[in-house]
Each structure stands twice: as C-alpha cells, then as structure tokens.
C-alpha cells in the first residue's frame, strides 16, 4: 500500500469511524448481493401438484418467466393414503377413489399446463402415486429449480403458513427452491 493510499485509509477511519459498517448493514437489508444479481442458469423447473394446489398464481408465473425453462408438472397422489384405503375399504371403492383422484389430477395438470403455455412456457406433465416429499426430492435432482406451493401436501389450512412437507423439501433439495 502506497503512502497516499494508507493516508486516505487513515483519514477515512478518522472521519467516518464505524458509521460505514452500519450504513452497509442498512443497505444489505434490501440491496441484492453480487451473487444474487446474477440469474442462475435454469433450464428446467419442477412444480409438484396435488389435491391441495389449485392454481399457480400470476405473481409466481412472473418470477418463473425470468428463466427460459421447461416446466415439469407432476401430480402426486399420496401412496400412504391409497394404501390405507386399500386396507380399510374394498377393492372397488379404492379403485373408485383412485379414478376420481386421477380425473382431478389430469384436469388440474391440463389446466395448469395450458395456463403456463399461454405465458410461453413449454411444459411436461406426469401423474403418479408416490411420496410427496421423497419423490420431489428425488426428482429435483434432475431439474435446475423446484417451485413449491405453500399449501402442497398440507390439507385445507386457512392461514398463510408453509406446509411442513414443503419446508422439509426445501431443507433437502440441492437445487434452488421457490415457494409461492
């Protein structure tokens, strides 16, 4: 460090004291860091759906539109529930439940895919019976981002809290996760 540089640093320290650190702290509350400014390359986004996710709001679509990505919609029926019904009810009732679920899931997938395609996204859909947490974590490995509805796998709670399964998924996935 040359004389002029160390002179300026000395004067800076004497004039500003500790004020600059507090200014930086205040700014960090709402200014993005250099890392955050860079938009990560996201080519595929996984969006899990289930009985409790009725729609993807426009605000979430706006955020997703920042990426030029293909969206994979996956409707998951809880394997645990199907298993319980199979044990509690007769085969015919279980089959009827499964058909109704699949019917609902197919319609939701079609409706959601159509809405996303209207916004210029290309989409892929799939439907299966599985584990709402584990399967999403597994599938997320093949995607660059996962977008989760706060109500996913949560029942019809009326408050704005985030479902525990969603929080658990966020803790386990390595890809960026978006909660809407």
């Amino acid at each position, binding site marked *: 460090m040359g004389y*002029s540089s160390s002179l*300026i640093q000395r*004067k*800076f320290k004497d004039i500003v*004291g500790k*004020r600059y650190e507090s*200014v930086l702290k205040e700014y960090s509350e*709402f200014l993005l860091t250099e890392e955050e*400014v860079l938009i990560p390359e996201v080519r595929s986004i996984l969006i899990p759906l289930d009985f409790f996710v009725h729609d993807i709001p426009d605000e979430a679509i706006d955020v997703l539109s920042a990426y030029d990505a293909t969206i994979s919609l996956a409707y998951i029926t809880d394997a645990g529930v199907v298993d319980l019904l199979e044990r509690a009810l007769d085969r015919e009732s279980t089959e009827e439940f499964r058909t109704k679920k699949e019917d609902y899931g197919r319609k939701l997938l079609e409706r959601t895919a159509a809405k996303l395609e209207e916004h210029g996204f290309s989409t892929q859909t799939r439907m299966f019976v599985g584990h709402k947490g584990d399967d999403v974590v597994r599938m997320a490995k093949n995607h660059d981002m996962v977008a989760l509805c706060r109500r996913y796998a949560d029942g019809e709670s009326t408050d704005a809290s985030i479902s525990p399964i969603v929080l658990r998924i966020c803790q386990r996935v390595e890809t960026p996760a978006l909660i809407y």
Partner: protein
Amino acid sequence: MDTVALIAVAVFLFTYALIVDERIHRAVAAMLGAAIVVFVGIVPWEALLEHVDFGTIFLLLGMMIIVNTARGSGLFEYIAIRTAKLAKGSPIRVLVLFAIVTAIVSAFLDNVTTVLLLTPMLLYVARVMELNPVPFLVTEIFASNVGGAATLIGDPPNIMIASSAGLTFNEFLIHLAPIMVVDMAILLLMMYAIYGRSMKVSPDERQEMVRTLKGLDERAAIVDRSLFNKSVAVIAFVVLLFFVHDRVGEILHVVLPFVDPAMGLEPAEVALIGAAILLFWSRQSPEEIFEKIEWPALFFFGGLFVIVGALVETGIISSIAQIMVENVGSTGEAMFIVTWFAAIASAIVDNIPLTAAMIPLIHDLGATMDVYPLWWSLALGACLGGNGTAIGASANVVVIGIAERDGIGITFIDFLKVGMLVLFVTVAVGFGILWLKFAM
C-alpha cells in the same frame, strides 16, 4: 519574533502537519496543540472562551442530531433508490441525477453523511450497469463540494465563516448559491466531456438495469414510516427557519406581540431548536442519538480554534494582515489573493483548518479595508479548493475510502488530474462572478 510567538507558530505548523498526515487522529492532534498553548499560557482561559467559536460547534451539533435521528428512518436510502430508479437505465442520467441530488442534499446536510449514504447505492448501480464506477464517484465528490458551498450550512468552512462574520443564510443564497448553480452546470459538462464516451451501454444492458432496479422497493428502505415523515417535516421546518432566521422576531411579533420584532436567531440556535423538536416529536432515545454525534469532529474544531487563537494572541495574525495591507492595492486584488490562496491551500491542508486560520486574518484586514467581499472569496476558495486533491475535503476521503474498500482504486494522481482541472475552472468562474459583483 519572541519566544512565545515562536512556540505558537511551531505548535500551529506541527499540528497542521499532524492533521495532514493523520497518523494521529486529527481531533487528538488539535487537542494536543490546544493543550500546549493553554499550558504555556499563550491562550488564557478567558481568551480561550473567546476564540472557540461556539456558534460553529453548536450549529454542527444541532445538525448532527437532526441527521442522525433522520438516518434511522431510512430517508437517505429512500432518496438513493428513488434517484437510481429515475435514471431509467441511462448511465449519463445516473451521473447527472446523482450529482444533482448529492449537491442538493449536501447544500442542506453535511457532506460526509450525504456521500456516506449515497455512495453504496451509486456503486451498486454502476455494478449493475457493468460500468467503471470511477466517473460516477468523482462526479459525486465534486458535486458534494460544489453543493455544500452554496449555503451557510452546506460545508464546515461556510459555517465557520458565517458564525464568525455574522453572515446570514440568505446572504449565502444571494452571493454563493447562484455561483454554485453555474459551477454545477459547468462541472456536469466537464464530466460529460471527460467520461461521456466510456458510459455507453447496449439496449440489453439498459433493460437489465431497469429490471434490476425495478426490483428494488424504495418503500422497503423506510424502516420507520412515522419517523420518516417527522424527519422530513422537521428538516423542512429547519430549512424554512434558516431562510428567516435573521428576522424571525418580525414574523413572531405578528402572532406573539411580546416578541421583540428586532429579534433574530443565530444559525446555531435554529439547528438546536430543530434538534430539540425532532427528538421530542420522534420519541427516539436521546442516549442512542447522542452516542452517534461525531464528538471527535467537534473536539477537532474546538482544538483548531484554540491553536489559531494562539496566533492571534501572539500578534502573528495581525503581522501577516499588516504585510497583506501594505502589499495589496485594491479590494479586487485582495479578493484574488484570498480566493486563490484559500483554494490551493485547502487542496493541500484540508479546508477546515485552513478556514480556521484565515478567519482571524480577514478580521484583522477589516481595520483597513472592506472585508465583506473577502468572506465570499474565502468561502468560495475553501469549499471549491477541496476538489483539488484526494484529501482536500472530507467528502473526497470518504468516497475514495469506500471505493478502495470495494476494490476500486482511485489513485492520488488520477484524482489530482481531474480535481485540479475542476478546481481551477470552478474557482475561476466563481471568482469572476464575485469580482464583477464587488470589485467592478
């Protein structure tokens, strides 16, 4: 020269050298110098109270309380984000808008706080635009010094001059503010001519910047909405009171007949009244606010006044004034010497100690000539002279220091090249206007 005078001169030169070098905190250096001249009896207690300009110290204190209370509301961050958004992705607009906002804020609040709070935002915007931030930063420095020169409360040299010479806020608006408007326009043209070519961005980059800045919510910067509103209201009230501080009695007499119509308020009283109102109204903890007052700066001023007081007590200042009187033929000539000496010396020494030393000299010149124009010459030279070097004014040091911490090097020589050009052009224009006004 007798021994006492030699000691006073030695202490003065040694302290100023310490202040320039800053290996010892400037406040400690000034206090040490003051302690020596008091200890050896050059400045006795009664004289000390006369030499310390409490008008300056209380004005600074009041404004520090107002600014530190207002800071907690997020007011400055709000201004910074609004300014960045207004630029709409154009680098030239960023440069011009930030320069204008810096100049306006610096004209009413202290330069250090202004640049301390605007520079991080300016660096952020330059980073988003992927442009070299140096042109933006040096323009901000110059704008802060030019803006600060426009009003009585904008820059410490003006506060010191006004307090000592009894000048009013409106006199500064009449004599200096128009010069600073012209200098600001010239400064922006110079910056455009020097840096304009390096500020091109592609339409895609501009869109990217607009999108990023759109994501910033200026309302999120407001930490405390109620304090924000109260701060804006009190700052507006204080500025308004500054406009009428010398004839506040006339106005109050209309509604309160017992008030003497001849009564006026000193600028320091205005600042302290504003500080008291804001503290009372905002219910902020006084302990927290008083802790944020820059006490070292106030002790620095106090020490300087005593050291310069020693030169007055020993007759050094009157001897220099006598030499000047014998060699200066006219007011215009005196204005020329004061302006350019103050400009060049404050680029080297820092304009605060320089002004502290020049004030008693001009008072002494008052015995033989009209010194009214010389106060404006001193204010012009001291404030704009700060633009000359990286250490010429506190705002320069703060911006360059922040840039260095961010990995952006602005070397002393790089700054000197542009700074000296700005100094000579702006001071020459300012001097020309003052000369036409007072010496023609």
